[in-house]
């Protein structure tokens, strides 16, 4: 009985303080951690593989016009399973080590991306051109206003000027840096 109590006390004393000073000091998760999603809009070809595998339906795809595919991300629902980044052929989606997603506005977690694509010659719907050469003239994207607030991984708001209201868009991404 008493011995037991002493052993318990010993365990308590030996351990010392183990709690982390977390909010006051950063805490880095292990490499390979599936944190907040990051999206490199430059790389997205609008193939829709991510939307097809996403278990919680974070990613919605809508073809607004023959050449504009809208990818809508509702990150509030993301379960961080990492299927999207796994299947993304271009590596456009990736998980960061970020895990602080708290926000006062749910809109911060909404992200919309319009990808300019080649229209299918037969049905007229959006279609990722198969070869790099073909992709060259049609690549481009547009990001929604709310993305701007969501974080640094997203394109700058200035790009929104590219949007032409009538749906006819410039086929050339002006921002794309030359190699």
């Amino acid at each position, binding site marked *: *009985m008493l*011995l*037991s*109590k002493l*052993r*318990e006390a*010993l*365990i*308590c004393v030996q*351990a010392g303080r*183990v709690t982390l000073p977390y909010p006051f000091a950063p805490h880095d*998760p*292990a*490499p*390979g*951690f*599936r944190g907040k999603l990051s999206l490199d809009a430059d790389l997205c070809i609008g193939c829709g593989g991510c939307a097809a*595998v*996403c*278990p*919680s*339906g974070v990613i*919605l795809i809508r073809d607004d016009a023959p050449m504009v595919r809208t990818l*809508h991300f*509702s990150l*509030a*629902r993301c*379960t*961080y*399973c*990492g*299927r999207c980044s*796994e299947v993304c052929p271009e590596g456009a989606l990736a*998980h960061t080590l970020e895990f602080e997603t708290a926000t006062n506005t*749910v809109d911060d977690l909404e992200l919309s991306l319009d990808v300019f694509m080649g229209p299918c010659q037969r049905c007229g719907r959006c279609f990722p051109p198969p070869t790099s050469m073909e992709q060259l003239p049609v690549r481009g994207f547009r990001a929604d206003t709310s993305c701007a607030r969501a974080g640094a991984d997203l394109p700058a708001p200035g790009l929104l000027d590219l949007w032409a209201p009538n749906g006819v868009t410039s086929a050339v991404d002006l921002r794309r840096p030359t190699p």
Partner: protein
Amino acid sequence: MIATATAEAVTLLTSRLGAGLLVARELEPDLLWVSVNPADVRTATATMKELGTRFLVTVGIDERPLGGGYGIVHLFAMDDAHQFVAIDCPVSAGDPRIDSITPLIPGAAWAEQEFHDMIGVEPVGHPDPRRLVLPDDWPKGVHPLRRDVAYNYRPPSVEGAAPELKSPPKGTSVVPIGPFFPVLEEPARFRLFVEGETVVGCDYRGFYNHRGIEKLGDSVLTWDRIPFLAERICGICGFIHSTCYCQAAEKAAGIVVPRRAAYIRTIMLELERIHSHLLWLGIAGHIIGFDTVLMQTWRIREPVMWLTEEISGNRKTYGMNMVGGVRRDISDAQLPRIRDVLATVEREAIAVRKAITDDSTLHARTKGVGPLSTEWAREICVVGPPARASNVPIDARLDHPYAAYDDLPPHLCLADGCDTWSRVIVRLDELADSIRLVREAIDNLPTGPVLAEFDEIPAGRIGVSAVEAPRGEAIHFVMTGGVNRPYRWRVRAPTFPNLQAIPAMIRGQSIADVPITIGSIDPCFSCTERMETVDCRDGRVRVYSLKELQALTQSASTGDGGYDL
């Protein structure tokens, strides 16, 4: 070839049922499918009981689109023969009624109430015909798991609905434990009928968290998405559910999982058991006011969480399982780290065990508390540590081997105290055994791929899988359908049978013993109730205002509203 034990079972069933036995065939090496005339369900059940089989769960299937009626499938396990037996009763769509088997098997009570609610087949002669799963304001006659009810159907709530409650016996007063009670981390409502501090009876109302996850799996999601949904059935033992689902689907589709994947699953399952048992120990300590145990065991648990984060990319909900294997491999570089963590945890766990085994105040709080006799544990079909602490030798890892447990047999940790203390001891033993298993698994980790390639899963196949979760055995039943998704997916979490044992365990105990008794089965209400929150297809995310939240919590406390499909 039909195994000897199942052959015997078929022989006996044939002799008992005669023409009532419609079909008996072996669907898989470990699953015997017996279709019987619904009128003979009691005879068949009695025969199964006579054979010493253990009732698992009932699956209700709406087979009308397939040209049938309602299929009521009682699942049984022949543990010694490593077999599952499904007693299928095709109930006609015109007269959706079937004899209740609860009078024969008390543990079937909830399973039958559940198919009554969800499929709309009435168990005739059920001792407690009240609602179990559906909310009180759910309209009568709407059965959500019928195929003609859309997954996102929201019926108008019935005005003035109130839960059907048992009234307390004369001379007793009611002490409510739940829906919102400090040590029940999830909503569940026990109304204790007390005389003084002695509990003379109780009434249970639960399933406040029901979100129709099975319906989502049946109707919306594809094979590959379901593991991630299944993983979220439980916050602690999610990997168990995704494994169990994948195994059921793999069995149905006949997919052979690569050995390395099987080993990795084993490692993750056992790591999950380690941290779950440590977590439970802490919570049990907290329940009896011993917060030091909570703090110290959770401190010991933490390295395991970091380890799983390193392996899987997340401390919980690993997201590793896929139908056909696992997504993420364990690199050789991680192995020493795993060994380190195991050594630390083992050392600390031994110290904790040494410290608490002789603690007489702990004995005072746990010995003789929450008694569950071996007989009643069998009757109510209790699983996992509570069963083993009542000296019922069942362990799905040994009885229905899966993953790599055929190579790495666990010890069967039994105790015969039939009380909370025995449950502590069983879990401490299992903790040590799990550490050994992980160590052996990484020592013998085979090389090779981790994910099997497979084509389309054919429709109309059936798979039943059991996985020994830290809390007990989880059962998943999968009936495949076309278009890349199951026709019916049934989940039975270990808390489902264990929770039914609670009323017997707390009768005659004092109020002070009730929380620890409930805690001693390590209840997981949302597992049992299969929670999921967001409607996936329309993509609308609802933001609740404070007012709405208040309204929700208030309505949830009366047992109405709050959950919809």
